């Protein structure tokens, strides 16, 4: 630990300047709930730790018309205590409430959760289902990356060395309310997900008008299930159709076996959670 340098800039501009100079020599720390375990496990070698947790301008939850913007250092606890998230974007609230435990949630940020690019990142499936985009900045440059294009593999993202996530944005459209997030873990709290599903759905006369669905821990990256979505669009929902859609899910997911569950169980559960999300949302809307 003592070989690490540490700096805690107060503004975004400072961060971007340091990133430009240090590039991969710098390691952004937001809540540190991934970074600290990585340091202990020697996954991160001694570097400059660039603590962004104190940067006020990156901590916000805003809604302007139908445009949502969430700052990168917004913590998971911030999501839970936000009235507007609870009332108008409940899917994120559901994910936040099933995230780790209160202590970790106080530290963990939404930006860190996405930048860490774990297939099990709990905020990724709801944000994928919300069709979110990431606001990414480097010194003097801004760009936007769709979340669906952001994850490249476990712990691999489309971010360049000198870039940081500054915020997340998405639109509320007719789909966003209501949404459903289901997490299957091996205990009631502090569980890394075995499988998660996030779904937003619009039903018209028992017909799927539109649907977006994403899953966690079923592939090397948090996964949008485009084929299953396409398959269901414009169809009348019934038990047989759901069974068929489950088969589409099985085709799209590609989980691994690890200490928590086998690939077969994950695959099976992805079908079950997919069905449950559909059932829950149709019951709520009908």
């Amino acid at each position, binding site marked *: 630990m003592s070989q690490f340098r540490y700096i805690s800039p107060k503004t975004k501009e400072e961060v971007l300047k340091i990133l430009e100079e240090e590039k991969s020599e710098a390691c952004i720390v937001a809540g540190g709930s991934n970074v600290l375990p990585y340091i202990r496990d020697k996954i991160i070698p001694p570097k400059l730790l660039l603590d962004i947790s104190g940067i006020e301008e990156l901590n916000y939850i805003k809604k302007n018309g139908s445009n949502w913007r969430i700052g990168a250092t917004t913590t998971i606890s911030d999501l839970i205590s936000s009235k507007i998230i609870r009332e108008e974007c409940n899917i994120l609230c559901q994910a936040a409430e099933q995230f780790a435990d209160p202590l970790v949630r106080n530290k963990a940020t939404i930006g860190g959760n996405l930048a860490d690019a774990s297939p099990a990142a709990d905020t990724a499936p709801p944000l994928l289902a919300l069709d979110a985009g990431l606001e990414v900045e480097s010194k003097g440059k801004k760009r936007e990356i769709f979340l669906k294009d952001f994850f490249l593999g476990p712990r691999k993202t489309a971010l360049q060395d000198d870039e940081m996530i500054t915020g997340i944005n998405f639109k509320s459209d007719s789909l966003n309310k209501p949404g459903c997030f289901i997490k*299957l873990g*091996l*205990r*009631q*709290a502090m569980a890394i997900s075995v499988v998660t599903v996030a779904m937003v759905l619009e039903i018209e006369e028992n017909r799927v008008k539109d649907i977006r669905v994403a899953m966690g821990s079923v592939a090397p990256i948090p996964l949008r299930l485009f084929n299953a979505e396409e398959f269901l669009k414009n169809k009348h929902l019934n038990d047989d159709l759901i069974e068929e859609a489950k088969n589409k899910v099985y085709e799209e997911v590609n989980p691994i076996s690890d*200490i928590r569950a086998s690939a*077969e*169980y994950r695959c099976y559960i992805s079908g*079950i959670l997919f069905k449950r999300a559909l059932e829950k949302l149709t019951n709520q809307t009908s």
Partner: protein
Amino acid sequence: MSEFKIVGKPIPREDARAKAKGELKYADDFSLPGMLYGKVLHSKYPAAKIISIDTTKAKQLPGVHAVLTARDVPHNETITRFGQSAEVGKGFEGLYRVLADKKVRFRGEAVALVAADTEEIAEEAAALIEVNYEPLPGVFDPVEAMKPGAYLVGEGDSNIICKFGCSQGDIKKGFAEAEVIIEDTYQVPFVDHAYLETEGGVAWIDEKEVINIRVGSQVIEHFRDVAEVLGLPHNQVRYIGTMMGGGFGGKEDITVETYLALLTWKTKKPVRLFYTREESILCHSKRHPFIMHYKVGAKKDGRLVALEAELISDAGAYPYLSPWVNLYATVNAAGPYCIPNVKINTYCVLTNNTFTSANRGFGAPQPNVAYESLMDELAYKLKIDPLEIRRKNCITTGKSLSTTGQVFNTYVALPEVAEKAWKALGETKKVEDKNKRIGRGLAIGLMSYGRMTFLHDTSRCYVRLESDGSVLIRSGIPDLGGGQVSLLCQIAAEELGVPMSKIRIYYSDTALTPLAGTTTATRQTYMSGNATLKAAREIKKRIIQKAAEMMNVNPEKLVIGEEKIIVKYDSAQYLPLLEVIKACNTEGIELFCEAQFKGPFTMVPDLSNIRGTIFPDFTFGAQAVEISVDIETGQVEVLKLVTCYDVGKAINPLSVEGQMEGGSIYGMGYALMEEVVMEKGVTLTPSFSEYIIPTAADVPEVEAILVESGGGLGPYGAKGIGEPSCSIIAPAILNAIYDAVGVRIKSLPATPEKIIRALKKHYFEGR
């Protein structure tokens, strides 16, 4: 027994305030000027030859004070002992090797030690030690390891370290009489103790050349073993025990004390060494996994006529407490049932897995999983109620244990606790969820408290009544967090008629407190409780005698309480305690006493057919649960948990309930989620991210029902509860899963995946 003033009352514990305020100094809350940091280099192979060890680079690193290998240890190989004073012979003593020499037996075995100015330097130095290994094939499955020609883990000619047997009646005849026979195999995994506080401490040398080791240990008597490793007289090593953040059997063996002693001895400086969580999981003992093959025979009316069991357990790489644990398993193998024909065989086998040793329950929970699952199967097969079949077969007062034949002359509460636990489940919970099925399960069991009688167990305690009426106690008792220390205070307060606030206790110091024996085997309430009672009563006798003289009444007419010596039935007639103390002191009457309590002594039994009294006494209990199983995901939720034990007498009901609740959750983790997964000797669950235990959010409603028969051997008729409390819950949960969804899980933990694979066979078969 309403005359008690302090005993039997749910009062705050002696240690409660300091713990609640965060003021208590645990082993890690301590440092000394100039203190060095110790690190252990652990083997990276589960089985390998050590060709060479080169410590040159490590020693050259600035800030490094010592790098030690097996060669530097005066007596690197000694015999495992656990504070017993009686000779017990070869069958129970195994090799204790401080640092790996020539060959490593498990991944994580200590190979070298480092002391340096900082933890980082110590870590860096450990990484600079060049160990040249030649990997060996190893053996990782106890059944494989038993076979002739198997890879030999140690230096002996067989991997089997002990074989125990027990039998009564005629097993062939028994099965011939049976009208139903059920046969099955059950498996239980390695589990970790998962205490909050990992293994560690600080050691230093004082001005008398004594090595002081301030450490969390359940067995401070290990000072002798450490002295023997160093080749020092016993009185040159001193343990200062601290309040512990959990022991659960994991601090019953020597943990890091020998390493601390060696490093401080070589450097002549204070040394601190604490295991990380990963080291704790990888390198220190685990609970024994067992493969248990059972066969039971019964009459159509449910009466048991025969039980045969073969138990095979995995000792891992070194024996440690394996023989003892397997003895417990053998004695417990037929459960709390009267069965005329019984035959048990137990084998314990070395493998190249992490070594196994004591873990709360000590060999009792494992067979309990098997026989209580079987009883349930039998009940379903014969269409008999789960409570009824147990009531029909369980041991009652005056009957004997079906393995050893030990007779129970005091109250056997089994029928009572079984009924109370089962009934307390109350009305079935309603669940709205269409995918959830409710199920209930019951299990009963017994477990000894107090050490095996052939160990000739004793405990001592010193009590002194000060001239101002306050009390000082000195006892070597280690407190694991179970309230052991506070219990002694309560007993002294009760007997001497003073409030808890006037008691001060010094504990767990091998130089200054009388040795109280180990805090293991659920023995402290019984053993040290009795020693304290004896010492306090001796002082009380002298006080009363003096008061009787002063008041000119018969001493039998006097009682002590509220700091007074009172004439029975006439509370207006009394002397203040202080006055009597003054009189005693004037006359030189001793108001201090060191007393020893002795448990019953027996001979070492014939290990091929263990019969007779092996344990002083047993605690009987029953647990019942209501759960829900999600038939689509396999997830189990425990909705209600009842735990009912005859605790004899609850000296502090709060502590007893705490044990019963905590023990239940400990066992619930065993049933549903805990497993140290080892693949060819490599631990795949090295942290609390993979090794999961229940969180507060997983804890259901727990109801603890205390039966107080007064029939125990402890003070005031108390029995032990620490270990028995966790030993029965697992099969209750398995039985509830069966009740809910008709699936019998025969290997712990009952994970959602195992349940779903059993429920949806057709889905998984094609994949």
